[in-house]
């Protein structure tokens, strides 16, 4: 079910979607969006690529075992709880840096948390899709 039209389009859309997913992640604190939706859109990009080009191509594109993404996402999310523990504050208390940027808004541990969510969602979704797709091949 390979279509050259879809395959070509998917290659260009991939970048577009990935960029948009990051955009959703970073401004989620101020506008609709956030790590979860961002992660889903990123996963959607890969899903599109997979449908257009096949599972092998998609896995090659990702390069990394989705489980490591999951683990990394969880680790990021958990590690955002650590600074406050180390500082003797209540666990998960947000710690913010004074510098802010136009795109991100303020930078702080909650953003780290959201980034963890992003990676985790990406990893989870891809793991599920890839497992299912590989299951098909068997």
């Amino acid at each position, binding site marked *: 079910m390979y279509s050259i*039209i*879809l395959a070509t389009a998917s290659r260009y*859309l991939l970048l577009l979607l990935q960029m948009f997913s990051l955009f959703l992640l970073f401004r989620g604190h101020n506008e609709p969006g956030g790590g979860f939706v961002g992660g889903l859109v990123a996963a959607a990009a890969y899903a599109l690529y997979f449908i257009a080009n096949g599972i092998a191509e998609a896995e090659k594109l990702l390069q990394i075992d989705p489980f490591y993404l999951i683990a990394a996402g969880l680790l990021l999310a958990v590690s955002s709880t650590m600074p406050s523990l180390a500082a003797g504050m209540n666990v998960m208390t947000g710690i913010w840096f004074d510098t802010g940027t136009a795109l991100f808004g303020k930078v702080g541990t909650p953003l780290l948390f959201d980034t963890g969510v992003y990676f985790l969602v990406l990893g989870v979704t891809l793991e599920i899709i890839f497992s299912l797709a590989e299951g098909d091949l068997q």
Partner: protein
Amino acid sequence: MRETAGGILVLLGTFFILISAIGIFRMPDLYTRMSATTKASTLGIGLVLAGTVLYWFDIAIAARAISIIVFLFLTAPVAAHIIGRAAYFDGVPLWKHTKIDELAEDLKNRGEDSE
């Protein structure tokens, strides 16, 4: 004035949207429905969004509206193509008044060649 122009664009857009809705309801087979409708709605949405841009007249809004338009114009034909193709190979029948089907002929020939 600008807002009024926006309003008119919106109305125009919704007109095309309605057309496509009626089209998809009225057309005889899948392919004609797709031919008739996907673009009409794409155009319609484009117009509505353009109206939105005019109404707000703000770069952030424009960026969003334009990205939607661009994205739609990029993806709508691909989507139409992929469905049409899948439907065709899935055996969705053509309208009985369809004049010619060169794809079917070629497929038949190709099939004979390869066998």
